[in-house]
């Protein structure tokens, strides 16, 4: 009985802040407002509208950029997590802290900082000028958006992998070496398979915010690289079409849910095993 009651604040919280807003979004997405009469009508028109090549292109660009960012984060983050996990314990804490430190700064501020680094009169161009090298346009292109994503979301890849790596029993690595495995074999057959749960949560935690971001693309892409997030923002704040905006959000949500379900399929088998150690 007591347990049931003590869950009440959480139930209330999720009802007010998660379930009701979700239902509202779902409700908006399947209705339209007649522009003349102001009547609200049930319709799937918003969803239909999204399947215009124009919007599909935006969705594809979002998925592609988020996917690229995730792959780069994994490629950079895994070795970083390994280096972190192999440090002596004392240094490990400091290094992990240094790693998290930028995350304490405002996200927007960090992205603005990149604008001043990459901008026309930014640090990069100044350095190039000083070295008498030709200056370039680094801002407002796809590369800048990708850089912003990788920079902002890299810690979300490193931390879960680092956590899993530190939990791997050293004697498993020693056992593999004992059985004749050199460092590369140990990495391939022991360390990587055992860190799959960390990789999965890293991918989820990078891909999800990357696919729905609108700040990074707005600031570093200069509005030329519209992503799904920007589309939603635009519908709500500029066009004032909450119905279409909600439909896009719902589509994005379903997309994320599907990708999570696919990832979890890889996860379930190995996670149980690793927890056992």
């Amino acid at each position, binding site marked *: 009985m007591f347990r049931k009651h003590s869950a009440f604040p959480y139930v209330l919280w999720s009802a007010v802040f998660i379930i009701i807003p979700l239902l509202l979004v779902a409700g908006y997405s399947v209705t339209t407002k007649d522009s003349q009469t102001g009547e609200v009508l049930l319709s799937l028109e918003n969803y239909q509208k999204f399947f215009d090549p124009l919007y599909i292109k935006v969705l594809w660009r979002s998925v592609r950029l988020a996917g690229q960012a995730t792959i780069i984060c994994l490629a950079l983050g895994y070795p970083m997590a390994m280096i972190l996990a192999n440090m002596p314990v004392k240094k490990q804490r400091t290094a992990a802290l240094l790693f998290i430190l930028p995350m304490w700064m405002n996200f927007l501020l960090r992205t603005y900082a990149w604008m001043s680094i990459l901008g026309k009169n930014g640090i990069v161009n100044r350095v190039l000028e000083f070295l008498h090298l030709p200056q370039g346009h680094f801002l407002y292109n796809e590369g800048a958006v990708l850089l912003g994503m990788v920079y902002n979301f890299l810690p979300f890849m490193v931390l879960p992998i680092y956590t899993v790596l530190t939990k791997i*029993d050293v004697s*498993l690595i020693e056992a593999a*070496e*004992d059985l*004749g495995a050199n460092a590369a074999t140990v990495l391939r057959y022991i360390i990587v398979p055992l860190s799959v749960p960390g990789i999965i949560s890293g991918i989820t935690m990078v891909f999800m915010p990357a696919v729905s971001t609108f700040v990074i693309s707005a600031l570093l892409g200069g509005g030329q690289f519209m992503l799904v997030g920007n589309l939603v923002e635009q519908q709500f704040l500029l066009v004032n079409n909450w119905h279409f905006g909600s439909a896009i959000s719902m589509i994005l949500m379903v997309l994320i849910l599907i990708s999570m379900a696919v990832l979890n399929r890889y996860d379930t088998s190995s996670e149980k095993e*690793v927890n*056992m150690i």
Partner: protein
Amino acid sequence: MNSKIIHGVNVVKEFDGVRVVDGIDFWVKQEEFLTILGPSGCGKTTTLRMIGGFETPTSGEILFDGKSITDLPPYQRPINTVFQRYALFPHMDIYENIAFGLRIKKLPESEVRDRVSNMLKLVELDGFEKRSVRSLSGGQQQRIAIARALVNEPKVLLLDEPLGALDLKLRKEMQYELKSMQQELGITFIYVTHDQEEALTMSDKIIIMNDGRIQQIGSPIDIYNEPENAFVADFIGESNILDGIMHEDYLVSFAGGTFKCVDSGFSRNENIEVVIRPEDIVFTKPEDGMITGIVDTIKFKGVHYEMIVMQGETEWMIHSTDMVQEGTEVGLHFDPDEIHIMKKVKKNV
């Protein structure tokens, strides 16, 4: 062919300036069952890890068949290890666990299959190929760990307290199984334990370590009957250890009396320590005893009673199947060959 398959020469290991292994020399012959015995923190596991290649000696050498392997990484040594907590790979099934070493050697699949199934038969777990590690009990995991090491046909098998996590009954069973496996396969075993009974039961040769130094090397019988110092006497079985003086060959005095003994070769009036095993002492009438005392406490131990007899301030432990009431005055008797004389060593605190 060198009969010393593993030979440690003046091996030292320091961790952050602390000497964990302090210059030890030892060897093990082919097909021998060697046990390194000692209390926790004595350096026995570190010694084993240096043989396995998981630690590099600070100084000294480890020879395999006369050739130095001191700087070889673990994967280049013809040695396999059974780890304390088994260290089975949780993401592989039993078959893949055992096949791991063979797969690395790139053996053909048919040979891998044969050898794995032979090993499973040896450890009496055939039919477990597709089981997951976590579905096995501690004893079964233990057997798989042994199979995974033995399948590679190592020249030397290292075992780091492999039975420590098992219950008493299973432990005894596994002791016999390990011993018979070792004899059957003719592999050299180097076994680390803190359990003196385990060491006495299984080994051909025991190395007793304390504070990073070897206290005694010998057969189980030698070590039990002729402990070289008070530490060994105390660590192997129960014993009464007393300070004494060796007057001349075959004459020693301790506990307020002077007695005949069978030891010689000490200097005149040398300070020594005397060990008498509690089961070697028999009760007599007070007037017939070499020593008299009063029975202080009695504990029932199953096969025998453990009694403490107070001779003034001196405690004597006696194991006997006869019970004597508390408070009774008794005489104690022991034969000259049951008095073991040991050189006095400086105690390391």
